[in-house]
């Protein structure tokens, strides 16, 4: 089967499974159908990936014109390149694994039958993003990915807000400051995720628009949004393109930044990152796929896909913002006490790292490095979340790092898997992260040396982020699995998932190792002179970070010691800032939700129809109606003005014949006088 056909099947299978599962009432059957479909997809995708990666060529799949608009067309079609092929395979594989895991995880969940179809929709949309051959289709699937995340995050749609949820209050991570609990609920989280993504999508649309404008102004026709055509754009003659005084090149920068804006939303980069931790309100299994391969990966993938379109100026922005997010999120992850929150912020941080790599540019090998990290991170994060899911499942929903501990005895396999994933993410030697993270640092370093590039900033920020990565990951593992059990009533019932589930999970473990990624050098990783430097730096940072984590972990139980107390005192403001998410959540809430959102909306609504008092009084005939300054009030005011004119006229009609006669005769006499003189 050709790669083109396979790519269509990869799209169609999950989509068909989604439709089929939506019709099934039985959770078990639905999971079976969905998992089977995803398994078939995996079995199709892996050989395809092997084939495409082997040939290194871009395979163009079927293409159809969706709409013909005369000057240009909008198409639907697929294409497979090595990156896409691998990512498609990873999506399929992880989806299969998560589905199987979920069948166990949700075995007593009444709504479980909903999960498979929403999940398959999600996966299908992601496959669409990965395999689309043009930006338009990618955008459509991109939006559907947003829909999938919306559905999954809001899976427990009827849960109350966290502040009102006794169960949540009992099980939440301690010291969860910075989270607006009166808002936090699955239904709010899904809304927030969708809307924040839409913020990015607005930029995405502007980017598409700018690309279209440039393309059409340079005389392009046909499917101008196809990646093949877009890739040629930077090298084309852009002198014909200009808009608002911007040259074609400037427009391309604008377009690139627009696309990146979309990626910022989807991949939860600063400042559009508030939704991702909230998305933890969804099932952990949903989080595992959302954080690994389907949702947040889309942003990185988009930028990687469009990397040829990114001029250096745009790349610098990408690099700086990514690296900043990497450090920013890592700093927050260090102080989280909710076991999933740590992972969530970790995802944000790692995505930032990927963007830092992308920002290094293709010449420095940043694209490959970032993609590689996307792959390795997907497996590790998926595994981490599934392990976290197992822990939460075993501990009856408790996710407070302060109350867990010593679980390695009760769930040794899980602990081992989690450790593998932690090491992989942290970039320990012989583990997967070691390969990809070092590549990113190397690329960033290489880019820093290029004159006119982003400079050393992104590299340094990424390094700091890497250091903290080691800290929070190790802290996370240690507080859950190592040491003594802190609260026996929380952990006593914990146990490893059943064998069948473990058998699936174990599939992911090899991917946390370095070997599969370096085998045969199939992954095109840069091996420049900076690589050695970067590797050294990374190892030092890893060691330092691990040391910090270990020291803190060891000191923490003995908080009375002077060192710990002093450290705590010194770091208190920093800690508070991190725990408060650097105020970004509150600022967002104030500025957007309350300010530009509800506040401005209330003002507009008031200016439009007036207040409730006016609206309530509308039908009362004759009664003086409040006439506030509103558009509708102006209309009523006009009407009232007309009526006032009429009232003035009616004054003449007070029933006095004398007045009538005076008007008539006076006007006649005046007319005679005037007519005479005229």
């Amino acid at each position: 089967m050709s790669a083109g056909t396979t790519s269509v099947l990869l799209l169609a299978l999950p989509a068909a499974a989604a439709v089929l599962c939506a019709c099934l009432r039985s959770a078990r059957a639905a999971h079976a159908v969905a998992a089977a479909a995803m398994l078939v997809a995996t079995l199709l995708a892996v050989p395809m990936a092997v084939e495409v990666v082997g040939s290194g060529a871009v395979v163009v799949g079927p293409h159809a014109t969706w709409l013909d608009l005369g000057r240009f067309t909008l198409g639907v079609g697929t294409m497979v390149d090595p990156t896409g092929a691998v990512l498609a395979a990873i999506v399929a594989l992880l989806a299969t694994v998560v589905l199987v895991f979920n069948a166990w995880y949700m075995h007593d969940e009444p709504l479980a039958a909903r999960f498979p179809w929403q999940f398959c929709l999600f996966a299908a949309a992601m496959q669409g993003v990965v395999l689309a051959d043009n930006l338009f289709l990618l955008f459509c699937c991109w939006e559907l990915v947003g829909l999938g995340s919306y559905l999954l995050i809001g899976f427990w749609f009827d849960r109350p807000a966290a502040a009102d949820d006794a169960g949540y209050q009992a099980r939440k991570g301690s010291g969860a400051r910075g989270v607006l609990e009166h808002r936090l609920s699955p239904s709010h989280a899904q809304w927030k995720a969708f809307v924040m993504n839409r913020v990015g999508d607005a930029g995405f649309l502007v980017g598409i628009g700018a690309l279209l404008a440039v393309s059409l102004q340079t005389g392009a026709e046909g499917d101008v949004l196809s990646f093949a055509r877009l890739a040629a754009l930077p090298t084309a003659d852009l002198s014909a393109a200009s808009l608002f005084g911007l040259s074609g090149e400037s427009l391309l920068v604008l377009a690139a930044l627009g696309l990146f804006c979309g990626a910022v939303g989807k991949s939860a980069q600063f400042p559009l990152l508030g939704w991702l931790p909230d998305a933890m309100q969804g099932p952990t299994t949903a989080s595992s796929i959302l954080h690994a391969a389907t949702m947040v990966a889309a942003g990185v993938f988009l930028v990687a896909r469009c990397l040829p379109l990114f001029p250096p100026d745009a790349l610098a922005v990408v690099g700086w913002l990514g690296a900043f997010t990497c450090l920013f999120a890592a700093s927050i992850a260090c102080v989280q006490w909710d076991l999933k929150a740590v992972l969530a912020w970790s995802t944000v941080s790692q995505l930032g790292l990927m963007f830092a790599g992308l920002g290094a540019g293709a010449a420095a090998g940043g694209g490959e490095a970032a993609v590689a990290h996307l792959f390795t991170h997907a497996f590790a994060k998926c595994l981490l979340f599934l392990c976290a899911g197992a822990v939460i499942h075993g501990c009856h929903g408790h996710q407070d790092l302060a109350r867990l501990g010593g679980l390695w005895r009760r769930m040794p396999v899980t602990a081992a898997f989690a450790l593998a994933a932690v090491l992989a993410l942290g970039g320990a030697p012989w583990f997967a992260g070691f390969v990809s993270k070092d590549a990113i640092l190397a690329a960033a370093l290489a880019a820093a040396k290029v004159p006119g590039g982003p400079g050393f900033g992104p590299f340094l920020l990424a390094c700091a982020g890497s250091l903290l990565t080691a800290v929070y990951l190790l802290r996370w593992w240690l507080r859950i699995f190592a040491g003594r059990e802190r609260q026996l009533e929380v952990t006593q019932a914990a146990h490893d998932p059943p064998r069948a589930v473990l058998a699936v999970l174990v599939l992911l473990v090899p991917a946390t190792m370095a070997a599969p990624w370096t085998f045969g050098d199939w992954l095109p990783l840069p091996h420049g002179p900076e690589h050695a430097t970067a590797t050294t730096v990374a190892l030092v940072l890893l060691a330092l970070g691990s040391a910090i984590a270990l020291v803190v972990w060891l000191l923490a139980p003995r908080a009375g010691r002077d060192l710990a107390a002093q450290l705590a005192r010194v770091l208190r403001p920093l800690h508070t800032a991190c725990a408060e998410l650097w105020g970004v959540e509150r600022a967002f809430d104030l500025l957007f939700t309350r300010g530009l959102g509800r506040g401005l909306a209330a003002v507009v609504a008031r200016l439009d129809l007036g207040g409730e008092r006016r609206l309530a009084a509308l039908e009362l005939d004759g009664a003086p109606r409040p006439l506030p300054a509103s558009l509708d009030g102006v209309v009523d005011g006009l009407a009232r003005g007309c009526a006032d004119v009429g009232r003035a006229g009616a004054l003449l009609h007070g029933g006095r014949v004398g007045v009538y006669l005076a008007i008539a005769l006076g006007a006649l006499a005046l007319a005679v006088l005037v007519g005479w003189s005229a």
Partner: protein
Amino acid sequence: MTLPAPLAALPAPELALCVGLGAILLADLVPALVARRVAPWLGLAACAAAGVCLAVAPGDGAGMFAVDAIGRLARGLILALLALQLLAAAGDRRPARDVGVLAAALVALALGAGVTAAASHALPLWLGLELVALSSYALVACGGGDRRAAEAGMKFVLFGGVASAAMLFGLGHLYGATGSLDFASIGSGLAAASAAAVAPALLLAAAGIAYKLALVPLHGYAPDVYQGAPPLAVAAVSTLPKVAAAAALVRALQFVVPPAVAAPAALAAGLALVAATSLLFASFTALVQRCARRILAFSGIGHGAAVVLAAACAPQRAAVAAIAFYLLAYTAANTGALVCLALLERGPRGSDLAALAGSGRRRPWVAALLCLFVASLAGVPPLAGFLGKWGVLRLAFADLGAPALLAAAFAFVAATAIAAWSYLLIVRAVLFAGDSGPTDPREAAPLPVPLPTAVVLLLCAAATCGLGLWLDGFTAFAAVGP
């Protein structure tokens, strides 16, 4: 067929109406006939005879009556309206004794209107108007009228007397300035050097016509009369005199201004000013009325003004056609609306908007028809009123170089929009108000609509709906020969 010499001085249709009037008055002396309510039918017979006469031999008196298109059209319309009024009178539930007077007054009204519409001499014009006025007073206040009807009649007669006197005063000067009261002589006098004396006198003399058309500033009586008089009387008083006055106006203009030439700018501007003022004043003032019939009165002021606007545009065939169509649409809708109101009103202040609430529940069909007529008055397509407006506006917008007419035309359009709101007040009151309230069980079953009244309503409705798209009506009316 020739009439003996003195009688031939009057046009045959009006003579037929005279005979009918005499017959009704005689029949009113025979109690048996009174009890059988024959008067309206006698009137209808006279009306039919007059119609035949009009079709066969419109006839002209000894130079005092013109035979022209507007005269034929207006008198045809007057006879048709008379027939409707007589039918409505036949369906009215008043005591038998009053019916005779009512029918006589209606016939006399039509007679006066016909004379006015046909006159080409100021004296019969004035006498016709007086006849219209006197029979109107009788209609407004005769028989079972209540206190409000009497008040309306008193105001009507006082105002009418003054208007008549003013007109006479003007006519006197016209006579002095031209030596004759004949339209043709007045026209030639105006053309001669004595124009400076004739024009103001003419203006004063036009007061009589303006008063019948209820143009601002001679509109004062209309709302009070409409409000106080019995609705059927209002239906007659608001339609027939307007038709007659409009015809007289058109004819007077035809003599004053050479035919086939547009009115001189100053005259057109003056007429346009009167029309625009009336239109705007009426539409605004109607907004604040609390009585359906007062709203219709202000509507009548506006509609009279529209006729003047058409007359100002072009004293030519097209104007005649447009005016005839406009009057046809207006009178059909207005008659229908007032007959509907007559059926819907209860009690002495029955025409108040508040009192009409719930009519839609009590008499849905009548209320619906009322709304139809009112919509036609508002000029909503595809009803006849729309095409009437269309015809007038077509003329008003014809000359892009006449700013006064264009301004008046835009005023007309604006007034249409404002007036639509005032008509909506009636619709609101009749259909939407008191819609859900409990119905008084005593009123649950109103008396059935008498057959003649139903026929009147159906005829009006048919005209209102059927004429709405009859564009060729303008062509047909323009083709009416003398």
